[in-house]
């Protein structure tokens, strides 16, 4: 399968990428690892007229500690996240979740910024960033702004990034020693999660759901129940509150709602243990 024709431009810097986005607007798509975008283009579900390749912008794939936070360049690949000793120590949920994405080949190419900017509710990493209460940094023509992860995902595959903005960094608080869990239920290796759950219990309880609606979701009812002392089992019964899961070839919406309660219970129990 061959994508429709497009114009290919390579950005050498963030500023250049932003200028290209400003010039081409909605007609352009940003190419990083390409493991969400290129399959869509091959199926002609996406037909951008301009592809802006940011994959060679230097110094955008760091993972470093800064003032109680971990800052990650948007071009950091999943394989970097899963093998980072800093992440394993300070934010193990994120390293572990990165290891659950796709397969090794996909993790060698896919980027954290790409998976967030794509905003697929079935992706693993957005849920981990949501549960951790992460912050996303976008750069546009007027400079940089910070966006709370919970405000980032707007509707199916739509984020709060403006057409002329580029996601440049992701920050998460360090949570060494905090309880955490990532639960992913699928039928075959490398499949997308039918439902997934990311949980972190560190005083600022975070629980987020994979594939339970049109966007990656925080399970706020569960979080409130946990904060007020509910047991894992009781809190988990609220897992599907505020969700709108899809019905598809893998599972009905009803099945997903049930699965969410089971996986949230397992996640809370593992995070508490």
């Amino acid at each position, binding site marked *: 399968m061959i994508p429709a024709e497009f114009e*290919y431009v390579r950005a050498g810097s963030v500023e250049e990428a932003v200028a290209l986005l400003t010039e081409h607007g909605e007609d352009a798509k940003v*190419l990083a690892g*390409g493991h969400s975008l*290129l*399959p869509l283009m091959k199926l002609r579900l996406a037909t951008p007229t301009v592809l802006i390749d940011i994959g060679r912008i230097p110094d955008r794939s760091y993972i470093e500690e800064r003032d109680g936070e971990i800052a990650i360049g948007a071009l950091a690949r999943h394989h970097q996240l899963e093998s980072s000793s800093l992440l394993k120590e300070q934010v193990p949920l994120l390293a572990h979740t990165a290891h659950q994405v796709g397969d090794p080949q996909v993790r*060698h190419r896919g980027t954290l910024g790409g998976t967030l900017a794509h905003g697929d509710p079935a992706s693993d990493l957005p849920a981990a960033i949501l549960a951790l209460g992460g912050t996303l940094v976008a750069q546009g023509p007027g400079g940089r702004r910070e966006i709370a992860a919970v405000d980032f995902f707007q509707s199916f595959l739509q984020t709060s990034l403006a057409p002329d903005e580029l996601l440049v960094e992701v920050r998460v608080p360090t949570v060494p020693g905090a309880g955490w869990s990532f639960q992913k239920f699928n039928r075959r290796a490398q499949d997308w999660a039918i439902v997934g759950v990311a949980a972190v219990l560190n005083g600022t309880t975070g629980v987020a759901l994979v594939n339970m609606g049109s966007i990656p979701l925080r399970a706020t009812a569960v979080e409130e129940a946990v904060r007020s002392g509910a047991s894992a089992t009781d809190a988990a019964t609220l897992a599907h509150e505020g969700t709108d899961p899809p019905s598809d070839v893998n599972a009905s919406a009803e099945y997903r709602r049930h699965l969410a309660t089971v996986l949230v219970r397992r996640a809370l129990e593992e995070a508490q243990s």
Partner: protein
Amino acid sequence: MPSIQISLQVNGARRQHDVEPRLLLVQYLRETLGLTGTNIGCDTSSCGACTVLLDGVSVKSCTLLAVQADSTEVVTIEGLAGSDGTLHPVQEAFRQNHALQCGYCTPGMVMAAVSLLDEEVQLSERGVREGLEGNLCRCTGYHNIVKAVLACAADRGTLAESGS
């Protein structure tokens, strides 16, 4: 659309071509360079038949544009054996362990195994199975493939002591 000039190393040789931006890396390898050892299976980045090494790590060449491989080093199955025909240790282990049935997944499976072994982590049977999860064998001949990779790990001293 205007062509883009790319220049890269493929199996140690410098290659330079003007390519259409939408040309996939796997098509470039097979059709432009005639390196047909890299197979196309699912064409949707699921099956791993098209796996090659890009700057030393496994990637699915059906999900990369040739322009993304500009200035990189690509190794395909044709580039593994020595110039005198001596098989790469992973190829030799596949041969010794009869790690193939129809053979269609084999080039991708070998390249994925090379990348996995090059990470130099301790490998258990489970680690090998998980490390090859991006490669499907439609004959379901996984058993001997795993055996071959474990044999390579043992030779390299990266075989995990127990089933951890």
